[in-house]
């Protein structure tokens, strides 16, 4: 007993010293790319259900779709699993010829049967992203008649109206239309669930990589798919969930990860001085905006809506708080989309805003609240807006809240102003037009609740125009219709769009070929390598 404390003390010291010397200094293996990323949004890796940022990227690298688009020029659509396709003269029947000799990672051959199964399955399971396919009049009851196998390597799909072909094709490039291995999935079917409970956490695809392991909130491990035609340079890609951005930076600078995905603007500025690190970025199909609730009598005045558009210091936000992570953009269609207009008519102009407020009978300004998610970025932007609003006498009170909380309030139309992000659901302009410029029913118990509805805005004739644009089969005319829609919303809509999101990745110098596309499912590691 008497000697115990001394003994324990020295034992503890020896143990500490021993471990510090044996610490392994592991640079990542040359055939493995390790990424630090916040992946806690992943709740499923079944393509029929995938709808979040991180798992879209995983799906993009592990599954193939019928068709896809060129990340450098999104107007170029090419066949992935499909070799070619034909559209009937009435625009209602799409016939796809499937590539022969393709195999899934499991070794099973990929045929028309798998394609039909995958698309039908997505519609029948009816998870959140299923509406993307449902837009063409497909539902649980009719999908077996509408999507059919017409040959060992031929599939036809019937849509209910003669939509713009670009609309239908772009929708088919989204992850919900990924091709799954029917044989493997059905081996794991239970109680007629079409393998849903299994595929949620397992993999059955034909992409460049296969998913070897997913531990929620911890790690996703991708492994080279030996059956993929173009062998990937990397044997493995590991995504580690690192919530804290400062920790991501440390791991990157130390070389324990090759890519850090969530650094904040100051951290990006700091690591870009490190000669071993380079910065890569790509504009994404996401815009930041303020939603002005039209139930608020002040915000419902057209002059006030316009005045607020003159009370945001767009360039200051893009150059400071959101440096590297956003660029000024004011139309609801992000740059890179069919018909997007990239001119930004508004800038901070307090005198003009005051004049407009006076016209609205609010010479001395007014008080209004804004529901603000408590993230450093959103809070920073909100405070900047608060100070410019104040210059014209508009007193903006910020109500901080957690993201799900502010969203719940927004969805119930109980906000004054909501500061939010909107990412397109699919690569077609209809995705954004449908939510920013159309509202079929503005009553409280409407069935569809687009952003226009959430802000209690009736866009009048714009709704019909949005519906017409999706039917316009002439691409040029179609683009023009979207330009007009954007101009109308820019001029009078209850949305102050101020920024387009840029995604930034900080990479070790030896990383090459990690491609970031316009959407998350086009962030590709298929040809990435380490020199």
């Amino acid at each position, binding site marked *: 007993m008497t000697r115990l404390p001394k003994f324990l*003390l020295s034992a503890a010291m020896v143990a*500490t010293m021993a*471990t510090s010397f044996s610490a392994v200094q592991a640079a990542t293996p040359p055939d493995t790319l390790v990424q630090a990323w916040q992946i806690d949004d992943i709740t499923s890796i079944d393509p029929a259900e995938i709808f979040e940022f991180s798992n879209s990227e995983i799906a993009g690298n592990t599954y193939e779709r019928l068709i896809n688009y060129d990340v450098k020029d999104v107007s170029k659509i090419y066949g992935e699993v499909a070799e070619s396709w034909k559209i009937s003269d009435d625009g209602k029947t799409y016939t796809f010829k499937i590539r022969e000799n393709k195999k899934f990672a499991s070794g099973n051959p990929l045929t028309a049967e798998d394609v039909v199964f995958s698309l039908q399955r997505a519609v029948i399971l009816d998870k*959140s992203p299923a509406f993307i396919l449902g837009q063409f009049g497909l539902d649980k009851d009719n999908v077996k008649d509408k999507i059919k196998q017409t040959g060992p390597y031929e599939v036809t799909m019937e849509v209910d109206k003669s939509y713009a072909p670009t609309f239908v094709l772009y929708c088919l490039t989204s992850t919900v239309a990924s091709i799954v291995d029917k044989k493997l999935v059905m081996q794991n079917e239970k109680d007629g669930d079409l393998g849903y409970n299994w595929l949620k956490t397992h993999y059955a695809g034909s992409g460049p990589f296969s998913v070897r392991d997913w531990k929620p*909130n911890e790690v996703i491990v991708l492994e080279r798919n030996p059956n993929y035609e173009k062998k990937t340079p990397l044997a493995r890609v590991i995504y580690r969930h690192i919530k804290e951005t400062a920790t991501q930076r*440390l791991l990157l600078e*130390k070389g324990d990860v090759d890519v850090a995905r969530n650094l904040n603007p100051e951290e990006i500025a700091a690591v870009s001085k490190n000669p071993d690190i380079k910065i890569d970025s790509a504009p994404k199909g996401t815009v930041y905006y303020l939603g002005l609730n039209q139930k608020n009598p002040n915000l419902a005045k057209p002059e006030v809506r316009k005045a607020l558009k003159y009370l945001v210091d767009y360039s200051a936000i893009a150059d400071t708080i959101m440096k590297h992570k956003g660029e000024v953009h004011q139309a609801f269609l992000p740059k890179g989309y069919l018909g997007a207009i990239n001119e930004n008519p508004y800038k901070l102009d307090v005198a003009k805003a005051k004049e407009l407020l006076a016209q609205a009978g609010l010479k001395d300004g007014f008080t209004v609240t804004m529901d603000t998610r408590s993230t450093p970025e959103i809070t920073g932007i909100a405070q900047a807006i608060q100070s410019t609003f104040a210059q014209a006498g508009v007193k903006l009170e910020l109500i901080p809240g957690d993201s799900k909380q502010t969203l*719940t309030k927004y969805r119930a139309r109980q906000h004054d102003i909501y500061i939010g992000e909107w990412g397109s659901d699919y690569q077609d302009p209809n995705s954004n037009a449908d939510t920013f410029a159309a509202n079929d029913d503005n009553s409280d118990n409407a069935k*569809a609740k687009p952003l226009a509805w959430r802000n209690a805005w009736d866009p009048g004739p714009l709704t019909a125009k949005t519906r017409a644009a999706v039917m316009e089969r002439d691409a040029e005319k179609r683009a023009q219709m979207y330009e007009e829609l954007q101009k109308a919303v820019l001029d009078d809509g209850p949305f102050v769009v101020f920024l387009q999101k840029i995604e930034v990745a900080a990479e070790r110098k030896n990383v090459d070929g990690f491609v970031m596309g316009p959407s998350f499912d086009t962030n590709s590691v298929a040809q990435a390598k380490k020199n």
Partner: protein
Amino acid sequence: MASSIANGGGGHEALRFYLTKTSQFIAVLATTLLGLVAVTFFIGRVVPIDPVIAIVGDRAPAHVYERVRQELGLDLPLIQQFWIYLKKAVTGDFGNSVLTTNPVMTDILNAFPATFELATLGTLIGTIIGIPLGVLAAVKRGSLLDQFVRFIGLAGYSIPIFWLGLMGLLLFYAKLGWVAGPGRIDVTYSYLYTPVTNIVLIDTAMQGQWDAFWDAVSHIILPACLLGYFSMAYISRMTRSFMLNELAQEYVIAARVKGLSEFRVIWRHALRNAAVPLVTVIALSYANLLEGSVLTETVFAWPGLGQYITNSLQNADMNAVLGGTLVIGTVFVLLNLVSDLLYRLLDPRTR
């Protein structure tokens, strides 16, 4: 109690005593847990967060939203929802987590060992260093050592743990390279062993994967020392004040008068008496760490219970929050029981 004394008969009395104790314990456990479930459940239901969005996301069409709402039973009256939950919970079914889609119990069995490993090591370090330091500070009251111990205690109370964690990483990991970085084990080693207990140090050692074991040690040592530091700050401060109290007692003077060596007086007599309240202090500090040290777990990317519950809370994943709260509650009650038993062992008067 009185009746058992009246009945006499040593064996019976002891048996009866333990039976009463056990039933008392079970009653306490049941009431505590029931209270916990009720409070957490109703708070979870009144917060202005829509749990359906957590599952279907913001973009789901109206019919998908409505279907999930009904699946969750959210259209039923609150009391009925609670009753359904309770019935399932009794059978060990806490529902599925929205975030991970696993049964909540599976998730907790994954997350808890990570926290347990870290907290146990942290408490060990804190106790082994904290007690002797506290004793010495009390004995050499006012000396440089005493000042030092008080300074450490103060610093441990006032420095934010995430800041210290990041600084620790910066120094020992980034600059000096003495320890490995955030995470439990390097990816290179993570597939060399099969998780059995989910306590990496034990799993790797049992399977003889010594490279993996040492890698895990180099990962855990920094966060464990950090937690150890905070528990040491607390334990040494309390030890000091308990010892000061004991050293002023008459029996200490008596022992000294009898000519016992100073060493014996301090370490054998005074410390043994101070040990009784110290057990509670250590158990409390251990329970604190077992709750999951959220900030430490975040900075060190440690997939433990604290991170799990916080993350679930932020995502309105109420099943996971409820399950996690229950586990913490159980741990607290159990630790209380253990410290109660240790009390009896150390202090004959409480028997």
